[in-house]
């Protein structure tokens, strides 16, 4: 009995190891492995046209915030695609009267999709109650967070 017990433990251990590895792989796939969500510096990104011309604001913001990405105008040449929505709401008389603010309310959200794997590598939503510089502020907020993500700060 004393000789059989250690052998049984070893056999059970050997059998359970591949199962544990397979389970770990399944968890990794479900959550999206960290490697698949990486946006390498100098990747080529295509910005899908967004209502209200937000795509050009985003393009300008990527330049201004020095995000290490190359924006391309042809989707076939891109590694990643940025899609998003944006909405502006101008200040009404009540906001001007009670808050003394004529600044608009800006909302925008973007997502960056890896065109090869189809994985959403980054997503961010910006909400500016009183945006000092309108769409430019929302676009620059998105760009700033994208840069932080690429640099591993987020």
């Amino acid at each position: 009995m004393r000789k059989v017990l250690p052998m049984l433990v070893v056999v059970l251990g050997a059998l359970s190891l591949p199962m544990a590895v397979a389970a770990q792989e399944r968890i990794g796939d479900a959550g999206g492995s960290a490697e698949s969500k990486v946006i390498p510096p100098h990747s080529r990104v295509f910005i899908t046209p967004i209502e209200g011309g937000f795509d050009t604001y985003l393009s300008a913001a990527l330049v201004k915030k020095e995000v290490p990405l190359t924006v391309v105008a042809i989707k076939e040449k891109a590694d990643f695609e940025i899609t998003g929505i944006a909405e502006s709401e101008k200040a009404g008389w009540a906001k001007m009267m009670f808050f003394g603010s004529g600044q608009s309310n800006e909302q925008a959200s973007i997502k960056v999709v890896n065109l090869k794997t189809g994985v959403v590598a980054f997503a961010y939503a910006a909400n500016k109650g009183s945006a000092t510089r309108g769409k430019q502020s929302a676009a620059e907020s998105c760009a700033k967070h994208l840069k932080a993500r690429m640099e591993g700060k987020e």
Partner: protein
Amino acid sequence: MTLGQRTRIVVAVSCGLLVALGARAADKDNGKTIPTGAKVYITPSDGFEQNLKDALVAKQVPLTVVDDKAKADYEIVSHAQTQKAGAAKKILMGSWHSKEEASIQVNDLKSGDVVFAYSYHADNSAHGRKSSAESCAKHLKEKVK
């Protein structure tokens, strides 16, 4: 350590710093410039393209605007939005000026790369769309070499 060795070390370190700074500047600029005299096509954008054409002339941007996209080297895609001052802004803020937003993007039609992008915002624009177009033109001029 002799004086000659120190000098050599200082020169080597200085050269290294200069190379690093140069590389950073090139990286920031993406190394993309628009050659002087390049032909650009301005995509229609709710009348803002006309303001841009005028601004390119006013700011003496050395680019040739063409009406046929097939003949162009670059394409300017733009978007502009004007919000006239309402009664509330006039009474409560005491401002008659409009709020202007504009953004432009210059695409290289051969490589498909975006070589320049800029956005403008003014809460109280003195000359409306003219101001935003001229601001875009002024910054574009810096990119033309």
